[in-house]
């Protein structure tokens, strides 16, 4: 596929000079788009960090940042300034060049994945997307996986055993969770008969959000993406209480800030992906477009609401982000063997079950699929209830022992 083939049909309102190939097949519009996207991500990440600290604060009986700006809104810019002015230390034992390179190798893949996300409609623009790439589903699995290289380099070049242990954990985790994620995406691809993210969103708007048709796939995707981001409860690679920050232990200043940026950008990315893949992209509520088709009188309202697709997209993305943050502030951390068990023994078989169900839907239609899905969900419910009763047994582990005491006579009378 040549680079020209990758270029999309530009919207009609774009003048020629904006979309003419300028440099290596990229047009001016591409560069402007990249610039805007990069800056948008940087600002969004700052907002996200503030949000996380606020959400975390309120969960933890605190108030979060409060003093820098109204409700601490300027806390993140202040932190960025602090990181920029901090000394950029390179440990003596480090492999200098690779040590300095690693943060970029971690951030760039995350940033590149943003290119294929369809942000939804913004006014006259039908679908805001930098590259509506036909193989987007393959792309968004392949590119973030390149993060592993950066993490290995970061851990190895630090010359620190904790960092090495952390990066080994990171890579093991990343590779293990790639598989269930791919299988979950396969379900989506089968349902939408396409590997294009834009098409996936369109199919959802034509039928029903995949979160309802693929609930198992959605859960797998959510868990696997949280594991890939190494967020609590899957943060074994960072594990403050065991390996003290893992691969990032030796980093300081803005280099550490890059890892931090990559982590939060990945949270944003995965939430945005989950919205595109399972929650109908820019559609405001499930079946909204159908309402327009069924009730012609409501069509103008439907169209008006659809023009603000980006808003709905971000609303849903933020909801998911808050959910991920909620998990972070509530759950303890899994151990590495339990983490691997979850990936290989639970998520992967569940992913295949989901894939089979999707195939049933495509081949035999909705009714057999619904029956199969119902049975699968019953199975999941049964397993959950079994776990619940196991928990009750665990709680009864301790007992209260009453030791009778003979009260001495002189005390009893006093």
């Amino acid at each position, binding site marked *: 596929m040549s680079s020209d083939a990758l270029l999309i049909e530009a919207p009609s309102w774009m003048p020629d000079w904006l979309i003419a190939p300028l440099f290596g097949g990229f047009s001016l519009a591409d560069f402007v788009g990249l610039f805007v996207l990069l800056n948008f991500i940087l600002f969004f990440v700052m907002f996200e960090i503030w949000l996380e600290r606020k959400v975390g604060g309120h969960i933890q009986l605190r108030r979060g940042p409060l003093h820098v700006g109204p409700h601490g809104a300027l806390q993140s810019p202040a932190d960025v300034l602090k990181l920029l002015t901090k000394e950029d230390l390179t440990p003596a034992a480090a492999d200098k060049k690779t040590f300095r390179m690693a943060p970029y190798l971690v951030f760039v893949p995350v940033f590149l994945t943003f290119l294929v996300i369809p942000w939804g409609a913004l006014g006259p623009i039908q679908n805001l997307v930098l590259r509506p790439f036909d193989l987007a589903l393959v792309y968004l699995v392949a590119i973030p996986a390149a993060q592993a290289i950066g993490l290995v380099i970061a851990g190895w070049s630090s010359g620190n*055993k904790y960092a090495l242990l952390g990066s080994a954990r990171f890579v093991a985790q990343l590779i293990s969770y790639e598989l269930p994620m791919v299988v979950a995406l396969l379900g989506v691809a089968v349902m939408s008969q396409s590997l294009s993210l834009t098409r996936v969103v369109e199919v959802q708007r034509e039928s029903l959000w995949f979160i309802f048709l693929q609930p198992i796939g959605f859960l797998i995707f959510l868990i696997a993406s949280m594991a890939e981001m190494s967020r609590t409860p899957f943060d074994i690679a960072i*594990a403050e209480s065991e390996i003290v920050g893992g691969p990032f232990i030796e980093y300081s200043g803005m280099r550490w800030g890059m890892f931090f940026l990559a982590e939060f950008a990945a949270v944003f990315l995965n939430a945005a992906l989950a919205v595109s893949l399972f929650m109908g992209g820019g559609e405001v509520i499930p079946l909204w477009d159908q309402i327009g088709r069924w009730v012609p009188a409501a069509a103008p309202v439907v169209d008006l609401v659809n023009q603000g697709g980006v808003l709905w997209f971000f609303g849903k993305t933020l909801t998911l982000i808050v959910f991920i943050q909620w998990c972070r502030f509530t759950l*303890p951390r899994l151990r590495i063997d339990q983490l691997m068990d979850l990936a290989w023994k639970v998520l992967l078989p569940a992913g295949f079950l989901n894939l089979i169900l999707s195939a049933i839907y495509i081949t035999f239609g909705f009714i057999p699929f619904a029956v199969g899905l119902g049975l699968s969900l019953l199975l999941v419910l049964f397993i959950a209830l079994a776990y619940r009763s196991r928990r009750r047994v665990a709680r009864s582990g301790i007992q209260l*022992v009453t030791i009778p005491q003979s009260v001495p006579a002189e*005390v009893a009378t006093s």
Partner: protein
Amino acid sequence: MAIDVGERSIDAFAPVSAPAVEEHNLDTVEMTINMGPQHPSTHGVFRMVLALAGERVQAAEPFIGYLHRGAEKLGEAGDVEGYRKAVIWLDRTDYLSVWPNEHCYMMALEKLAGITVPERAEYLRVILSELGRVNSHCMFYGAFGADAGATTPFMYAFALREELYTLFEAVGGARMFPNYFRPGGLREDVPADFVERVSKTVDTAYRACDEFEALLTTNEIFLSRTRGIGVISAERAIDLGLSGPVLRATGIPLDIRKVEPYSIYDRFDFDIPVGTRGDCYERYLIRLQEMRQSLMIVQQALRDLPGGPIMGNAPKAMRPPKGDSYQRIENARGDFGVYLVSDGRSAAPYRVKYRSPCFVNLQALNEMVVGAYVADAVLALGSIDIVLGEVDR
């Protein structure tokens, strides 16, 4: 660094024997990592050197002494008010379980000097000691949650601790190191609104205990992380001389407050939580139950709190007759003891010796962590609930 674990050698736990490693004759190296003294989850300045095969701990060697300040020797060094000054150093050893420890020291001194304590002072001592135990278990809860990777328990625990410290401040004038108990009674009487304040704090603490439980106790991840981890059998626990929740988790209902009642503990109605398996999870459950039992004791003591003097027949200048005395109590971590020797002449004790439960309980660490994962080693250490100030003294 060579690590010698003695007879319990590494081959009891099979080293890595992946077929691929053997087939290709790959070189596998045991990694030695140094945990501490600067490490977030070594609870102070504890240090252990772990030999790892992959993620498994093959051998562990603990190092202590980074916080040794010679608290016992300093206790013997006072000139004028030596017997009263020693307790200041005692406060700084176990900085979480301060109230019970002060109580213990005063009882040892009173035994030595033949001082009697008025009823009101005894009740207030029990109330404050039990609140001190709650405070210490709060800290355990927070730190254990953090060891398990959850950040919120720490904040929940500190909300209650803040409440308790505010109360302690109102009573003794200081938050952490009250130095409030005196031989023969208390330094001064409690504030007028003491009873209401404590009852309010007790209610808050009951609610907080429920919140603590709701957050962690039935969490599936927490369960799978802590159950069956760091197991010590009852026989082994006795062999090692463990005490406190670590011992009671193995199923032995040994609590000094019951088996050798001191002060006025025989007047209160409370139970002893014991476990069956002796793992991290049961140690956690026992501490949470003990918080509730302590609060029950506080409520009973508040109900019966008599009026009257708070100071007994203690002489101004302490010069106990020649002899020695030993007093043991159940503090938040286990069997704490104070041994005092008087030469009958000087104003300071001739010898001060503290029997610190953490120091003894820490012996069990090696058995808990060898063969476990690194993550479990952190939890096992957390479940012993050490305070380094007390281990090193």
